[in-house]
């Protein structure tokens, strides 16, 4: 079943949609869906007050957010499977706490995309997030497993304190990527520069990258332009931490 939540424009403030778990919503009746509560600041409101709910019984399992989605925070919170689509921009903390499933944002994503909820917790522990546009700061901070692909640019501190997993940026990463990186891979077309805890380590080995690209293609997504024809340069780090992480950069640094 496909459940589409079309958010109305003119809603003031940021809406916390962490209670909208796709595995629950797909099994609810229309009435139950409308009564589902959301947090707006310290107040709760019902889903019916801010969006129109449409169910398509004959389609594949999918939860779709459309309309005015820019102010929605924690979309896909603790996602454990299935497919979630945002037909627009997503707010901050997209996919926080997720462990499986696929999130696809047709627009931009805010800060803390696939990151940890707080500095003491882990970032996403599995699943895949695809953002067709740009993403804000701290993408994949504290990430433990999974994959995040942003087709355009990312903000500062990409993969900060990352434990493992893979972050791919089709455009340019902001300043200080991989700050405190323990393990895991950050792959980008361009970077301004790297922190002093990263050292050049020749060219990347392509085999696992190709496996990764195959997986991305298997869910119907595209590899950033030019990546299949080139071999990126490899930098290991953050050597102030474990030093088992890597940043792969396709184009020479500016």
């Amino acid at each position, binding site marked *: 079943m496909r459940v589409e939540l079309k958010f109305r424009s003119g809603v003031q403030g940021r809406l916390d949609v962490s209670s909208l778990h796709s595995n629950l919503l797909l099994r609810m009746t229309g009435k139950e869906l409308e009564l589902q509560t959301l947090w707006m600041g310290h107040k709760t409101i019902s889903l019916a007050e801010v969006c129109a709910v449409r169910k398509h019984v004959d389609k594949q399992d999918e939860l779709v957010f459309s309309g005015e989605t820019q102010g929605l925070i924690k979309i896909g919170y603790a996602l454990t499977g299935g497919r979630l689509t945002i037909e627009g921009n997503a707010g901050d903390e997209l996919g926080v706490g997720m462990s499986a499933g696929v999130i696809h944002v047709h627009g931009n994503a805010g800060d803390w995309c696939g990151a940890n909820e707080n500095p003491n917790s882990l970032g996403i522990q599995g699943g895949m997030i695809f953002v067709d546009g740009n993403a804000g700061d701290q993408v994949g901070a504290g990430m433990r497993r999974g994959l995040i692909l942003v087709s355009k640019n990312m903000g500062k501190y990409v993969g900060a304190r990352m434990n493992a997993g893979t972050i791919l940026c089709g455009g340019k990463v902001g300043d200080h990527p991989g700050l405190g990186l323990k393990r895991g891979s950050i792959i980008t077309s361009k970077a301004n520069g790297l922190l002093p805890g990263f050292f050049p380590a020749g060219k990347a080995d392509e*085999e*696992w990258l190709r*496996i990764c*690209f195959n*997986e991305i293609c298997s869910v119907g997504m595209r590899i950033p332009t030019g990546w299949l024809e080139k071999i990126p340069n490899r930098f290991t780090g953050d050597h102030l931490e474990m030093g*088992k992480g890597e940043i792969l950069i396709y184009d020479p640094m500016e």
Partner: protein
Amino acid sequence: MQLKGVVIDNTFAEAFPMWVSRLILTADTSRLALQAAEAASGLAFSIIGCGCEAGIEGDVPASETPDGRPGVAALFFSYAPEKLEEHLLLRIGQAILPSATSACFNGLAAERMAKVGGKLRFFANGFQSSKLIGDQRYWRIPVADGEFVVSESFGIGQGVGGGNLIILGTERGKVLTAAEAAGNALRKVRGAIAPFPGGVCRSPSKPGSKYKEVRASTNDVYAPTLRTRVPTELKPEEQSAYEIVIDGTTEQIVRTAMKEGIRAACLPGVTRITAGNYGGKWGPYHLYLHRLLKDGKA
């Protein structure tokens, strides 16, 4: 029954259950992938002496391999899952890992999994790293030409071993040509291998020996030089015999491979095609040659 003038004996091959794993080996070129596969499946001809039977199943196009490089599929059989795991660890670690540009992936979805890459990673001495991509974990082991990528676990499933054909004829050269043709034909059947060199075995064996410590001995009934000393299976005009051993992932695949082998082996100089069995007491699969040729079922 006769096929192209060759007598097909009314008998059956006796096959038995074995455990099987399928490896997908990739490399920068198909030549390098084949080289690695040949190294890994070397000295794995007979379960009796080698503990493992292995062979190359066929090419895997780059579009179907996990890392998008040219690949080769190889099948490994053994009598116990623990023994098979031991051989996978040995053969991947000692033959595939050192092969230039190679990578090794699991090619069999099975309930039972053998942790192989998860053990081989220790070769990296702490510099190993893993990637969980989809639901598969891969280990990256740093080596001198980059990284050796290997699946953490390999599927171990139920297969069938011991399918066989014995090709007899008047001249050694002609019988060998027919046996090689049979070996080539059956190896085109996906899921089947003929583990002996060129698919052909010149030394059919029987279980047991007059010597206590020897587990198997020459099957004297097919040895032309012993025809005056033992109750021979050879007709007076038959001077040579070659055996084709066939293992497969399913009973049906072994049947199909045997059928293809028989058809290919009916060449000039071949008088008869028969099969080895132990009276039906050893293996649960009885693959009757006449039924194979008539309706494909044993």
